[in-house]
């Protein structure tokens, strides 16, 4: 069970309090009607699914209810940082320095 630091509660909490929300930074178009079918499919369905660092969404559903993003390694499952929804994608190198990895 993951231990996830909620950036709003500022406290690590067990995974069962959270709901996973898929890959992060896939923004909905401001004008979806202008999207091609291929671009729409890309938005709806295509994911990077990397073997490595993954930017992903979580909701602290049984806690503060807020959505936020986490950076987790998909092989070690290690989370090196979380940040609030809407904040820019953090620099991975910075995180790794801070986490000492």
């Amino acid at each position, binding site marked *: 069970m993951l231990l996830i630091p909620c950036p709003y509660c500022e406290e690590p909490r067990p995974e069962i309090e959270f709901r996973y929300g898929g890959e992060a930074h896939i923004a909905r178009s401001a004008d979806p009607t202008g999207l091609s079918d291929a671009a729409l499919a890309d938005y709806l*369905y295509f994911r990077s699914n990397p073997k490595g660092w993954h930017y*992903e969404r979580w909701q602290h559903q049984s806690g503060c209810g807020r959505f936020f993003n986490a950076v987790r390694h998909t092989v070690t499952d290690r989370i090196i940082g979380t940040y609030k929804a809407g904040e820019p994608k953090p620099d991975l190198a910075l995180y790794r320095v801070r986490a000492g990895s």
Partner: protein
Amino acid sequence: MRFSFGNLLRQARAGHTGWGPQWRDAEPKAAYDVVIIGAGGHGLATAYYLAAEHGICNIAVLEKSWLGGGNTGRNTTIIRSNYLCEESEALYEHAMKLWETLSDTLNYNVMYSPRGVLMLAHNEHDIRSLKRHIHANRLAGIDNEWLTAAQAQAFCPILNIDADLRYPVLGAALQHRGGVARHDAVAWGYARAASELGVDIIQNCEVTAIRRGTDGAVEAVETSRGRIAAKKIGVVAAGHTSVVMAMAGLRMPLESFPLQALVSEPVKPVMPCVVMSNAIHAYMSQSDKGELVIGAGTDAYVSYAQAGGLHIATHTLEAICELFPVTRRLKMLRNWGGIVDVTPDRSPIIGLTPVPGLFVNCGWGTGGFKATPGSGHVFAATLAHGVPHPIAAPFTLDRFRTGRLIDEAAAAAVSH
């Protein structure tokens, strides 16, 4: 040497010294007509059918680890074909027909055992959904019948049908021809048969890059054992498909999740069939060895760790203990995980890709084992001819653009 009782008897007298390697541990050649990435059941089956039915024998099957070591060797071996969508019915029934003669085809006892698969209904919504399956299956000529709770218990005596269960059993759909098979034997049987037809199975050979020519078409793969030229490449890498496809610059509509399973200690026969409950997430059968084989759920998040959280296993056992109260004192012997690649509509992708010469067979999610022979068979035809086999045709990558999804999950999982 052919596998037969006679030869076993003769070898018993000779101290079994006469059995040769079941497959050649091949060294990679410089070039192949077809390179298949991934020596799981689906990849090996693809190679076998390419060689056996399409006369293409200059094939390499590349495996980064040991063959059959991914989901083929980690699943709960359930076989059934009672799917809802017509496209799925065709695909899984095609596989079912191949299962019925597979031991004979491969001269390898894959222990296909049609012991019956019961799918339980716990509420009115389940009943409607299962009956819809039954009617659709009957139309397609696929066996699937409705049992009352009492009939279901007669078929599986340890099933708890008490009315005061939190989610009582209200009935079940039974596919008699559904059942189980021995997962390792499927990989080994295909490997042996393919190897005999000249296919090179190359283990410990990890693909690190896919090379494309000036025309954009695939040319070769770079591997941990050197460059291998290929006219066509078939990616059958299950949970790692996204990673391999990224080497060709393609993003896929896939997410990889850890899927857990567990077995009990072996006990004398107590469970005569397979029972599945989608509503409360419990799947159980008993292996020939006597272990109760139990499928658990996927963890919530994308991961390539072949391990998951304890809460997933405990949640499954909660359901198992309620449905099968006599198992409560039995013990969990081993709990493991695999990585399953899941598509948005929970149906596989079989076919061509935007890259010429590059083909993909993936997205089997939690249920790929049952399709192994059918998947390999239609993918081999697709690779051989460069156009989708008619059964594979609906399972294109393009359906995510057009919206023509084959959504088994949506059809079964929405409650009101």
